[in-house]
């Protein structure tokens, strides 16, 4: 069983190679369970503000290569990857009247 730090060490070079041209800057890894209770890694890949991250082929390949590398090491937990682009306008809230969610 790999630690989060070991997965991060594996992920960042893969992401830097494939997603570097898109503006990849860094990643973070947290292990946990998904909506079905299956153990998994939750990875966030951060990009430089203003990057164009809409490149399905590269995003899929980056996660795929990481998954293949994890599998080759005997790791069965799935790497869920969220691609994060800071600095973009936040979407309008779903709340009708509240300036912020009443549920912190």
């Amino acid at each position, binding site marked *: 069983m790999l630690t989060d730090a070991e997965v991060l060490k594996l992920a960042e070079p893969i992401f830097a190679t494939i997603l570097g041209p898109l503006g990849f800057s860094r990643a973070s890894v947290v292990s946990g369970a*998904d*909506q*079905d209770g299956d153990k998994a890694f939750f990875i966030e890949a951060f990009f430089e503000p203003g990057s164009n*991250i*809409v*490149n*399905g*082929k590269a*995003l*899929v*390949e980056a*996660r*795929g290569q990481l*998954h*293949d590398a994890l*599998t080759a090491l005997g790791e069965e937990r*799935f790497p*869920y*990857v*969220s*691609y*994060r*682009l800071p600095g*973009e*306008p*936040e*979407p*309008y*809230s*779903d709340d009708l009247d509240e300036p912020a*969610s009443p*549920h912190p």
Partner: protein
Amino acid sequence: MSQIKHRIVRELIQSAYARVEGGSARPTQTALRRAVSDSYYAVFHAVCYLTADGLVGWNTPWESFEPIYRSLDHQDAKKRFAAPDVAALGPEVRRIGEILRDLIKERHTADYDPRPFATNKAETLARIAQAQEAIDLIEALPKTTYRKLAVLLIAKPRRS
């Protein structure tokens, strides 16, 4: 190569893009949630289409096509793509399964989690692009892989 002929797949992708890009530069969280959900269902329908088309063919009457199309549920799809015999079909098949699994999780959050949706417009467009990539990968599968995948997604796993 086998083009997906069921219109719903492409129209769900178009619907996802329209929800995000159709309005202002700042879409609502609800629009982004629905776009993620549309993206997931586009890929799920593409996989269901693959199973039925690969086993009985798109030109088969609905009474034979529909039961195969509907025999795969969301949990089955997640489990079957993770099975070693499916993964052994090649990297393209693994990529399709990974996209589907990722979108299952995102769809679950988008549809059921009442907390503010923590995904912005660009990040949502990236999700839609990955869904489109899954569809492109399905359509580019060699015929033999396409048929084997259809069988493995539907067949009851063998007990050793």
